[in-house]
């Protein structure tokens, strides 16, 4: 009864987008984005819609991989996929009409050993990218307030660590 949608799901995932490395299949769901979207369209406009979010994410990723504080974390990661899923995530959260096809925050950051200082460095780089895109300070803070609680599932994978012996 329910195996047809599952097969369809696996089939859609089997097609790896061009330029990306294949990943193990996982269920796609907007809940993976780790927060709920804004209710109105104002945030999407404040971020200059698709073009603005595209520039911010490209800027953010470029800044991160050049940032000696956190560049190591991105080594060996699929930057093409990261840019695509980040743009989807921002678009989804900013109510830009996208679906998020990336993994959940816990799964996407598993075993990276990310610390508070890493997350703070990324926040600073994101602030700089939003500034360069001339996103208003108020709109910047509204997005950051949505992203901030993700620290609980990104930094140190606390809950996973505690369950793992010797973690």
């Amino acid at each position, binding site marked *: 009864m329910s195996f047809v949608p599952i097969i369809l799901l696996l089939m859609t995932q089997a097609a790896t987008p061009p330029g990306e490395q294949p990943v193990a299949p996982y269920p796609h769901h907007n809940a993976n984005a780790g927060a709920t979207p804004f209710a109105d369209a104002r945030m999407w406009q404040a971020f200059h819609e698709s073009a603005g979010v595209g520039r911010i994410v490209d800027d953010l990723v470029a800044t991160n991989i050049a940032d000696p*504080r956190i560049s190591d974390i991105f080594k060996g990661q699929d930057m093409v996929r990261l840019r695509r899923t980040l743009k989807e995530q921002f678009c989804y959260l900013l109510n830009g009409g996208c679906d998020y096809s990336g993994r959940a925050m816990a799964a996407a950051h598993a075993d990276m*050993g990310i*610390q*508070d*200082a*890493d997350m*703070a*460095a990324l*926040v*600073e780089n994101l*602030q700089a990218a939003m500034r360069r895109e001339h996103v208003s*300070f*108020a709109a910047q*803070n*509204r997005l*950051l*307030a*949505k992203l*901030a*609680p993700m*620290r*609980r599932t990104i930094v*140190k994978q606390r809950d996973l*660590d505690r369950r793992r012996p010797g*973690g």
Partner: protein
Amino acid sequence: MFKSALLLSTAIVAAFPAMAHERRDGGKLLLTGGVSSVDGAAGGGLASWALIAGDETEDGRGGSAHATYVALPDFDLTSAGVAAGFSNRVEISYAYQRFDTRKAGAALGLGRGFTFGQHVIGAKLRLAGDAVWDQDRLMPQVAVGVQYHIAEKAPVLRAVGARESESADFYIAATKILLAQGMVVNGTVRFTNANQFGLLGFGGDRHRGRSAQFEGSAGKLLAANLLAGVEYRTKPDNLGFAQEDDSYDLFVAWAFHRHASLTAAYVDLGDIATVKRQRGLFLSLQGSL
């Protein structure tokens, strides 16, 4: 006092989880360590907040140093101090305050340029909550602290009616950054018997013991490195010879460098030792690591 200090240190030791991760200093977001209050603890200018001093996160150590100058019509208040933060959990601070009576000293019978002074040794423990990251919860960052004051010029303090020249303040503070609104709010309840922050000793002929006093702060983030706001601090009124007023300030804190910030404020300390309307300029320079 020493029993409470012992209890606090026991609580501090118990509060540290097993630390299996890499230790690493620095990395706190800009201004989220607060600035240095006149008492030396991380906070606003007048109020002690629940934030922990220094640039460290839960993975490291940090610290700050400050120099503060408050220019009033008839007095000068200067304060200098250091604070250390451990794992964004525990804060230890020291400040020395100097209160110059200038010409008013002669009128008060103390002699021109008579100077009061005090040492303030503080410890603060973050109990719960996270002011910065928990943006989906209303729960603020909550900390408790103790500030042990040792005032100088004990014979003069006794002559004006103070009961003691040393005493401890105990406080509980709650701080929250409301990022979506760009606001920072703090509320602190302080149990104290300090006269004029302790510069005029502790307890008096009117009231001897501690009373609950309130410190409230609200600020608006104007940019990632710029916070403007207002603070209000109530004070006991223990001494018969002069009424003591509440104090407030309007401040701007500007992190002009990752490791340095400047706080400027208009401050109103009310009447001090019978000298009316002490309102003036508060300037504080702080460095942090």
